[in-house]
């Protein structure tokens, strides 16, 4: 009986999560927004088409060489490890919001369901989502290892099972941390703290992970080992990455299940499944203990009922702002008080320059890095234009302009009912987005300056050119979002991360930056290096001016539209 309930719950949650019925209704029944379906299909095909050469041209030769050097197993364990780490970082937010902040949880709590049942169904749904990570990071390695090592059918069946379980452990790990933590930290008072705390841990983890790996690589490089010694060292279980694989039980068990044969392989596979089962049972126990009580705490919202003194009252209400200032305050308050917006917006623009500096600091003594520096020295005159493009890339990756109106959600209706001019709204969103982007541009210019050791004037030139290009790119992103904002969401993170406009923005930004870079490369014979930055500046200024007009027209149209 309970199994049937659990099946119904899981299927319903999967349907709700992926909006299967809604999509079917929109595309098949109503035959509406078919362009959206075509766009998603096209993006998936383009992604696969661009990844096939990457796997066949880059990964396959690497795998062949690795197997020859006796390092094939290391490739497998690393793929497993990295897909798990990536899955952990990417799935953390989704899992926490699915457990505690999603609308469907509110609908499930009053129903006669056990916390463990709700948790199992949610965990299963999020894990399916996360399998995309393994699909790109783990499956190609398993397949290529199998092909190049002439593995039999049993290997591929084991590989399939390993793949299906690959994202479960990271999600179980998050659950094991979050449930006991919820009993210590009173999240109802610190709801935002939970998101900030976890986000910071993740960000710091990524940065330190990157730094640690680089430091390790540096130590190995400076030890003066020959390539043969290096191969031996890499195959040695004491190696750093192997240590992690051993310390991360699923990677170790999966590796043995895949690479051993017969009964031994089956035993390792059973152990692999057993570890997941044990962790799952622990999570179920924790859920029964903490899940619903934590959720209940999160619902405890009550007004303070504190009476304001006359002075306080006057202080609050006697300040008058112009319409523009009032809109600007609204924009900033909404941005800063929704951690999903503020953290994502800021993190997206600073993560790239930070990683750049950390990588450079960690890899400074590696011969390959030194070679790269010598290469940069030879083309010093290209540092400023390339740096400008990188600054533009970092600055325009905030995803804030691509969600300028999507982030409003249903609040856009409120905005529409107010006597405000769409131009004022656009101006506010323009300033806000570009100020956040400015942080990314400046950080990137400084990072490029730090690595390539250029002067302050050149750093300034990178910042200015990068900023002009960013404004242009931000305008393009805002046009996309103004044309079709995603206003229906129950979780703010969806407005940024599960928004098709964000996907389009990434395509525009990457297409523009790499397109211009490629164009610069093929025209390097005809355009003097000194002219490249003025040309980029001109593109930025002209592009910003032209798109500004379109943006205003689009905004007016949006405010006239039925929402």
């Amino acid at each position, binding site marked *: 009986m309970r199994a049937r309930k659990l099946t*119904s719950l899981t299927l319903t949650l999967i*349907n709700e999560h992926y909006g299967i019925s*809604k999509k079917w209704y929109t595309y098949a029944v109503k035959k509406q927004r078919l362009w959206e379906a075509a766009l998603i299909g096209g993006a998936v095909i383009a992604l696969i088409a661009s990844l096939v050469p990457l796997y066949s041209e880059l990964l396959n030769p690497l795998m062949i060489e690795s197997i020859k050097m006796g390092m094939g197993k290391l490739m497998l364990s690393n793929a497993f490890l990295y897909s798990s780490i990536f899955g952990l970082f990417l799935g953390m937010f989704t899992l926490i919001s699915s457990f505690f902040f999603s609308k469907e949880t*509110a*609908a499930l709590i*009053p129903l*006669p369901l056990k916390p463990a049942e709700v948790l199992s169904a949610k965990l299963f749904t999020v894990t399916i989502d996360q399998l995309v990570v393994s699909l790109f990071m783990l499956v190609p390695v398993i397949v290529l290892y199998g092909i190049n090592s002439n593995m039999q059918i049993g290997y591929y069946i084991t590989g399939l099972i390993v793949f299906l379980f690959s994202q479960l452990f990271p999600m179980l790990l998050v659950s094991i941390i979050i449930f006991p933590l919820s009993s210590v930290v009173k999240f109802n008072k610190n709801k935002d703290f939970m998101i900030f705390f976890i986000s910071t841990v993740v960000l710091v983890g990524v940065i330190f992970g990157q730094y640690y790996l680089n430091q390790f690589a540096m130590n190995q490089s400076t030890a003066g080992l020959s390539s043969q010694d290096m191969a031996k060292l890499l195959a040695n279980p004491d190696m750093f990455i192997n240590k992690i694989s051993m310390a991360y039980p699923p990677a170790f068990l999966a590796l043995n299940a895949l690479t051993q044969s017969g009964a031994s392989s089956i035993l390792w596979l059973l152990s692999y499944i057993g570890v997941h089962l044990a962790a799952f049972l622990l999570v179920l126990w924790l859920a029964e203990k903490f899940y619903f009580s934590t959720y209940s705490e999160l619902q*405890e919202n009550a007004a303070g009922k504190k009476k304001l003194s006359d002075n306080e009252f006057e202080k609050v209400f006697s300040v008058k702002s112009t319409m523009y200032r009032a809109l600007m305050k609204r924009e900033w308050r909404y941005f800063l008080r929704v951690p999903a917006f503020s953290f994502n917006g800021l993190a997206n623009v600073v993560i790239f320059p930070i990683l750049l500096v950390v990588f450079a600091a960690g890899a400074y003594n590696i011969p390959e890095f030194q070679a790269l520096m010598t290469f940069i020295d030879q083309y010093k005159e290209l540092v400023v234009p390339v740096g400008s493009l990188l600054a533009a890339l970092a600055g325009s990756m905030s995803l804030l302009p691509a969600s300028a109106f999507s982030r409003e959600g249903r609040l856009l209706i409120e905005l529409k009912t107010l006597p405000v001019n769409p131009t004022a709204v656009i101006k506010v969103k323009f300033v806000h987005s570009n100020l956040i982007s400015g942080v990314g541009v400046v950080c990137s210019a400084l990072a490029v300056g730090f690595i390539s050791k250029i002067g302050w004037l050149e750093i300034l030139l990178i910042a200015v050119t990068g900023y002009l290009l960013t404004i242009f790119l931000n305008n393009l992103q805002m046009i996309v979002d103004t044309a079709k904002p995603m206003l229906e969401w129950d979780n703010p993170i969806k407005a940024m991360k599960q928004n098709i406009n964000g996907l389009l923005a990434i395509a525009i930004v990457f297409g523009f930056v790499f397109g211009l870079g490629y164009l610069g490369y093929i025209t390097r014979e005809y355009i003097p290096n000194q002219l490249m930055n003025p040309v980029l500046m001109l593109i930025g200024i002209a592009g910003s001016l032209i798109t500004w007009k379109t943006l205003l027209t689009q905004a007016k149209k949006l405010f006239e539209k039925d929402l």
Partner: protein
Amino acid sequence: MIELSELTKVYNGTVKAVDDISLTVKPGEIFGFLGPNGAGKSTSIKMLAGILKPTSGSIKICGIDRMKDPIKAKMNIGYVPDEPLLMEKITGAEYINFIADVFDVPPKIRTERAQKLLEYFKLINAVKDPISTYSHGMRQKLSLVCALIHNPPVWVLDEPIVGLDPESAFILKKMMVSHAKSGNTVFFSTHIMEVAEKICDRIAIISKGKILFIGTVQEIRKAKGEQSLEKIFLEVTDSESEKIDFSYLDTNQ
């Protein structure tokens, strides 16, 4: 059927939303829970439904302790929140089926009940559409259908009339009366005094987390004089709204 005993809810360790309330709602009774905004009505109802955990006190539904056996207690409740809690990307039919699965409603019974309820509330033609396409009123009606699909002995409804069209409101009121007549219990909150006056067997007035009055409408009239329930309500809750001169709002620019 419903027994609240010394029920208290304190938010953030400081705000007492519900302060030591005790009441019993018997089988066959329609019980109205009245009170101004922020009085503690929804908090009490959320504790009944299992969304909030009481700080102290106990809740019994059909003799089952809500805290000790929450699943069994919930099986006896049909709960409609003040804001419809529905999954929006699935269709109405899928949602009803899911709720029926959770409450173990046999297919034959669910088909019959769903058909009747959907017809009453005029949702029969929308049931195959995603809930996101529904209006607020339609969502409220679907929420009612889901709450009643498993024929629970106890209905707990938080302002169920809000958002309903007059015909649906009339149907719901009739259903509430019929449900109570069959020996079941209806516990609901409302701001509409006429509704409370017309259909409630007993009412409770709650303000600042405390129950100020509990009894029949006749009993409250006997105690406070023959006047409208609205006036009695304002008097009991110490409202000074009657004395306010609102002409100020129309004279200042």
